[in-house]
């Protein structure tokens, strides 16, 4: 579907995205994760062909999209739902039919297809409502239905979790899954609220400062669970980690940074997992400190400023990063 090569984007001289290579398959379910300002939204706007990259090429189905004209044509096949979607004046149905009307589809046909798209998201009851009389979660669902109604080859969602409650979010992902079952469509979701995206995505792209990183600040790892749990052992690079789960097959492990204990010596404790390593980064975050430990894989631990000083932890120091098996979350 998409092939990106050496793509770089910058605003006002500041580089916000740098991707050497990225392939997104036609039936992909890609979760783009990372903190605010990591380049997620920029990547989505590039994939939506709403802006041109400063450098590199983005190809759609093998054809490079370079000129304004080529971007215009490509936009007909890709649609982006923004973090706070804008609904046009008029009814929900008129909004959902908008993309089809823009393609010259007759009003009657556009409305019936719009209703189908709304039904996928269990929102057909909203059809006659005014677009300005909706809750945030409803706006989100209507905007997704509006995108789906155009039968896109790729659907891009920017932070769909921001305005929706958990139940609405489940309905949203269920609707997208149903739409994908009907026809192949690449779906890319940018999020910093991760759990639902992980449960649903089959691939995760973690961004940090505009570049891919193998580990997000939340310590995420894509693994293959051997099964036969409740206690299973998986390898994260050189590190063997015990996790408590009944699941088998591909999964994402997340180790919350605030569940990781740093110590100068190996601990005799209930924490089953310990990784020796060296501190490679120390970053202030409010009153706390994010300490990145490299022991073959990178783990981020969130500790207090005082602990950092009392333990004398500086970049280069040798430490043990320990965490309990039950602290490892499996998605």
């Amino acid at each position, binding site marked *: 579907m998409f092939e990106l090569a050496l793509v770089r984007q910058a605003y006002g001289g500041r580089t916000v995205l740098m991707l050497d290579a990225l392939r997104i398959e036609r039936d992909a379910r890609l979760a783009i994760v990372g903190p605010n300002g990591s380049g997620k939204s920029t990547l989505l706007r590039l994939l*939506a062909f*709403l802006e041109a990259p400063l450098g590199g090429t983005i190809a759609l189905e093998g054809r490079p999209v370079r000129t304004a004209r080529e971007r*215009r044509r490509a*936009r*007909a096949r*890709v*649609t*982006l739902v*923004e973090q*706070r*979607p*804008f609904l*046009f*004046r*008029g009814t929900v149905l008129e909004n959902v039919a*908008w*993309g089809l009307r*823009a*393609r010259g589809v007759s009003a009657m046909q556009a409305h019936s297809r719009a209703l189908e798209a709304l039904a996928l998201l269990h929102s057909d009851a909203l059809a006659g409502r*005014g*677009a*300005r009389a909706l809750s945030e979660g409803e706006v989100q669902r209507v905007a997704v239905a*509006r*995108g789906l109604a*155009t039968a896109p080859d790729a659907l891009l969602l920017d932070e769909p979790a921001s305005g929706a409650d958990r139940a609405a979010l489940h309905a949203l992902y269920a609707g997208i899954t149903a739409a994908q079952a009907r026809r192949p469509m690449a779906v890319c979701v940018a999020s910093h609220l991760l759990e639902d995206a992980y449960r649903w995505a089959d691939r995760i792209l973690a961004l940090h400062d505009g570049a891919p990183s193998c580990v997000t600040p939340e310590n995420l790892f894509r693994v293959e669970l051997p099964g036969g749990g409740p206690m299973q052992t998986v390898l994260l690079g050189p590190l063997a980690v015990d996790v408590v789960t009944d699941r088998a097959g591909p999964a994402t492990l997340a180790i919350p940074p605030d569940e990781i204990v740093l110590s100068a010596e190996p601990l005799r404790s209930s924490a089953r997992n310990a990784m020796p390593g060296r501190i490679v980064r120390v970053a202030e975050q409010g009153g706390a400190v994010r300490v990145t430990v490299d022991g073959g894989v990178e783990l981020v631990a969130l500790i207090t400023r005082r602990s950092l000083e009392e333990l004398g932890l500086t970049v280069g120091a040798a430490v043990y990063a320990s965490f309990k098996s039950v602290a490892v979350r499996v998605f």
Partner: protein
Amino acid sequence: MTWPHAEVAGIAALSLRVALLATAVACALGIPVGLWLGTTAFRGRRALLLAVNTLLAVPTVVVGLAIYLLLSRHGPLGGLGLLFTWPAIVVAEVVLAFPIAAALSAAAVQAADPRIHRTALTLGAGPVRAAFAVAREARLALGAAVVVAFARVLSEVGAAMIVGGNIRHQTRTLTTAVALATSQGNFALAIALGLVLLALALTVNALILMLQGRGDV
């Protein structure tokens, strides 16, 4: 000394006709240009916006002079024989109102929510339909552009005087009539004509307001 009612009615009718026609033409040309300038990124766009904004400040007598020279017998468009006819006033007023329509509508769509344009594009709209979508959402500010253009044209006197010549029964508008009455010391008549002008402005603006209010969600 007063003028016959029929004459005043004729003057008012001419003023209204010139103002409505000039506003319509200026907006029909200026608003699309404004939408284009406000929604499309291209080289030289800022220079064009600057040029349009500068034209807002051109004195009306200068425009009147330019149109006079264009339309005068030895001018490039002299063959049309338009000088000292009411269509000549319309031409001058269009030239005056066009920058207003263009600059204010460009400002209106630039001030509109940037998500509107992106949303239209990502839903597959071409540039024209996307600009139209922005215009639809920014219709109140666009209405203001029409109102200001109309006000400028209706109240304008310098250009109307120069290219129309203030000829009785032919090119005398309310503003040029007020100027004449004042210069003759006939203040009562001047005030009366001024009030007619105000009443016209009130009526047309009320109509525009009604049009805008309709179709609100």
